[in-house]
């Protein structure tokens, strides 16, 4: 709809049969997404705060003499997730540039996006490996505070990874079916935003558990 709001509409409420996304719609969608991410930042901020508070209760960090999750796997997972984010972002941007650069951009979007998704899947597998490793060593979430923190926080994060992957998949299917494309891309850019958010959260978890 026109931003000035002065169009006179006659009779019944008008019907727009061919929804197209205007720049205004994109701003709306992005604003909504940013608010959502802001909100979820508070949620994960809470978890990280809990992490810091509880970590402070343990005299030696990480606790001595117990099996710890493998730092190399986690580090590799971090890189994979970062790469995934980069691919997703490039894909999303290639769509935005599409009208200017040419139609073949849509193909480039697909390949970049799929690469990003596969990397994301790879991250999920690495994450599963981390858990498996720890469980093999006899540590589960009930073993102690460290394990509670590790399993609890990574579970919540993994749930978001799964949601993120579903969103990416949904966007991919939508773009294949022509539901999303250069003219209607706010879902795609929002999915990408969410994916970056998931990546940033992981970064903090990684720093908390493996670096500091």
């Amino acid at each position: 709809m026109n931003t000035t709001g002065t169009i006179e509409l006659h009779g019944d409420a008008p019907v727009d049969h061919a929804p197209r996304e205007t720049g205004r719609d994109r701003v709306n969608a992005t604003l909504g997404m940013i608010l959502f991410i802001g909100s979820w930042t508070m949620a994960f901020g809470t978890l990280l705060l809990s992490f810091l508070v509880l970590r402070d209760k343990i005299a030696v960090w990480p606790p001595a003499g117990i099996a710890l999750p493998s730092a190399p796997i986690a580090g590799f997972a971090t890189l994979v997730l970062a790469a995934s984010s980069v691919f997703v972002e490039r894909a999303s941007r290639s769509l935005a540039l599409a009208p200017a650069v040419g139609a073949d951009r849509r193909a480039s979007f697909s390949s970049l996006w799929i690469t990003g998704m596969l990397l994301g899947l790879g991250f999920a597998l690495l994450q599963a490996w981390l858990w498996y490793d720890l469980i093999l060593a006899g540590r589960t979430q009930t073993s102690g505070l460290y394990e509670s923190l590790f399993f609890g926080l990574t579970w919540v994060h993994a749930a978001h990874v799964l949601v993120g992957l579903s969103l990416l998949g949904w966007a991919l299917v939508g773009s294949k079916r022509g539901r999303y494309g250069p003219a209607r891309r706010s879902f795609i850019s929002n999915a990408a935003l969410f994916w970056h958010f998931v990546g940033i959260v992981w970064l903090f978890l990684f720093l908390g558990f493996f670096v500091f």
Partner: protein
Amino acid sequence: MSSDHIHPEPTTFLRKHVFSTDHKVIAKQFLWFGLIWLGIGGIMAMMLRWQLANPGVPVPLLGGLLFPRTGGVIDPASYNTLFTMHGTIMIFLGLTPAMIGALGNWCIPLMIGARDMIFPTLNMLSFWAMFAGGAVGFYSLFVPLGATEAGWTGYPTLSTTVGGVGQGETLWAIAVFLIGASSIMGGINYITTVIRLRAPGMSWMRLPLTVWGLFLTSILNVLFVPVIGSAMILLVLDRVFGTSFYVPASIMSGGTGGDPILYQHLFWIFGHPEVYILILPAWGVVCDLLSFFARKPAFGYRTSVGSMVVITVLSAVVYGHHMFTTGLSAMLGESFMLLTMIISVPAEVLFFNWLHTLWKGSLRLTTPMLFAMSVIFVFGLGGLTGIYLATIGTDIFLHDTYFVVGHFHLTMAASALFGTFGAVYFWFPKMFGRMMSEKLGKWHFWLSFVPLVIVFCIMFISGYAGMPRRYYDHTSVEYLRPLQHLNVATSVAAFLLGAAQLIFVFNFIKSRWWGKPAPQNPWDVGTLDWTIETPVPHYNFKTIPVVQCGPHEFSNPVLGPDTDWIYQTEKLPD
């Protein structure tokens, strides 16, 4: 995706009335939902008061049905469940949908000149997430091993498996989580809508104050509800998966364990803003209604907005005053005491503006106006008694006594409830196309207001005398036995208060279907919602209005002697 694209009006019943994306339908859904839960929560309060006044006497009417194994007597566990669920229901399932869900959905698009919320599907989901939360919460009452018994604050370790092994507490946490998700969805929607869909000319300083209140509430919702969401996730992990976030190791036997106090921090980081989440829309409504019915501009519009903003900000940093007896360090305690007290300054500015709005007005004492004015009284009483609780010296004695119960019921419960009543009486004509009975409305007002003040003022007395809250039976302790008269008196007044709500129910139902048809603008008010016909058409505004003046241009001399108000779409004469 976007509300700018107009879809045809749905024709199937399911799409039109159940899974509708129309903000007006959703507002009505929220209203009915909220009112029903307020009723359930109210009945629970009545049962609580019954037990306190007559410990161990079977509850009349409902007792045999609800507590067959005890012959109608509320047993201690059921009593705990009742007050826990009373709090949870009133806050999350009663006031939140009725105040924020219904009022926000109804007022925001109509008052800012938008055709719908900006994310209609999200809006629908918001209601159904709330509904799911309500369903889970209700179901939790009937699970084996008892419903939640840990108080609405759900402090661990009482809320972990240490204190209760049943499913009820888990379901309670999930219900709170779902309701929180609903609030976040609503909040995102409201904020984006207010930012993006204001009609041309509707500048920030021309927004009705109701919208301001709802907007600030939404900000608090979006920022602080996730905190309780996370706290609940950790609680569920502790309960279901055996983690130890909140379950500490024993001092004597050692080991690593979590920290129950962490939950208190998280809960109150959310919990204190929640108080303002509930009260800010009521304040907005009161600001507007006072101006509308005093036929006078809202005095000090900018300072009112400013103080609401300041309170919104302050609400985030004062939560520690709920934990003065927990064992906060002296430094933290003093800082929180100072910050809490500072809240009285913006609150005082609001009071000043409200009273000044009435001063030299031309007061039309309709039912909505009476409720709006009673908020000044009730919130004044509740807010001022907050000073006792902000001061650590007095709080140490008064903490967790009935004084606190009286205080927060007056501030966040009674004020928000009366604000909601005022709003319902005010917008009912636009919502349902019929007028509510003024006569019954005034009966309802007086019979609610007087007992309500009595109920909670007696609580101040009994709290001052040292009566702890959440006691099943105060006569079990010799020290408290002489105070039982106070309990009886409170209960008598509370039953009156409860009975008075039947008038409202009757009035609401009768007016909804058999009331007098409402004119387009029964209250002579100029905001955008009253510029359109009743009932409001699909997509509200055929033409998006262009706003020419503020919402409160009452009795402006330039309007001439014949009229004292002007629509916001009209230009003030020079």
